[in-house]
């Protein structure tokens, strides 16, 4: 084997290359975001995913091989979700005063998000399993996959549309909220967390502490509400 081939085999087998590439893509994405004046549309998750997906497709690298290395980053999602309790606790005095309004908004907004997804899919004659995969798309990935499975959707397709919805919500959500004149940081956080789960929350946390706390709260509440309500509704409608 030539030296170069040995290097290639090493890079393909060890997690180091994929892990380094993921972190480097993220740093580049952050730099690009700053260069574009931190415009809401300049979403670093979108940039990093696009760059890495393009590199994998161009290099003929399998996703599973990439994930061997990237899983170390992926693993931190669990503790990071737990850590959302800290901004929520710091903002607790504000959150407690608006607990009823926040809960009502998230439950109704989450139901609307699922309903509008089902309605649009039905209007375009989507296959039943595609409709069922689109219904839970605003909920955080593991919950959405579980719901999709229960109502006859495809969990893997759900995972893809959940991520896409999160990126769309994080990038375009602030623009839409400006358009409909929602200026209250609490309401902005609730809207982003309900419709764009953790990817939206990541954006909200980087803009405003209050919006971040409400977004994390909305993400958790909507996961719970949709998991309880959607399978019941689906059975009633189906």
């Amino acid at each position: 084997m030539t030296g170069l081939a040995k290097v290639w085999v090493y890079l393909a087998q060890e997690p180091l290359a994929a892990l380094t590439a993921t972190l480097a893509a993220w740093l580049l994405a952050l730099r690009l975001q700053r260069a574009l004046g931190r415009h809401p549309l300049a979403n670093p998750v979108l940039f990093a995913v696009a760059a890495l997906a393009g590199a994998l497709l161009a290099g003929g690298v399998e996703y599973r091989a990439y994930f061997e290395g990237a899983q170390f980053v992926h693993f931190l999602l669990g503790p990071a979700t737990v850590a959302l309790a800290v901004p929520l606790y710091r903002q607790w005095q504000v959150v407690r005063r608006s607990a009823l309004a926040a809960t009502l908004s998230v439950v109704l907004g989450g139901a609307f998000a699922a309903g509008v997804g089902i309605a649009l899919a039905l209007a375009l004659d989507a296959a039943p399993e595609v409709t069922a995969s689109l219904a839970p798309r605003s909920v955080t990935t593991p919950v959405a996959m579980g719901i999709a499975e229960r109502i006859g959707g495809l969990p893997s397709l759900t995972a893809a549309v959940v991520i896409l919805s999160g990126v769309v919500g994080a990038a375009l959500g602030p623009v839409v909220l400006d358009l409909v004149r929602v200026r209250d940081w609490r309401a902005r956080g609730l809207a982003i967390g309900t419709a764009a789960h953790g990817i939206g929350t990541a954006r909200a946390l980087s803009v405003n502490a209050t919006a971040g706390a409400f977004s994390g709260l909305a993400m958790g509440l909507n996961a719970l509400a949709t998991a309880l309500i959607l399978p019941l509704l689906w059975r009633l409608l189906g």
Partner: protein
Amino acid sequence: MIGALTSLLACQLAGEVAARALGLPVPGPVVGMVILFAVLLLRGGEAPAPLGQAADGLLGNLGLLFVPAGVGVILYLPVLARDWAPISLAVLAGTLAAIAVTGRLAQALLRRLG
């Protein structure tokens, strides 16, 4: 730092165990978030500084943590290409409509209910 990370992992572990043992419809880390929040409320006062630093460090780069799963979209390109119309409409129009409706609703309710 290690102490704070251990607290986060312990809450997640407790959440994973509770979610499975009780058959809860939400994932372990979300239950873990509720557990950590309850512990902070019971302790009272400010959140411990190392925990605050660990949380800020993780959440400051929360977007990065979604990148590996996001790259997985390449596995579903054929499905996405086949059903591109309903999928892109639900993802784009559906998500943005949900943000507009939830935002307006929340702003109105917050004004009325405090």
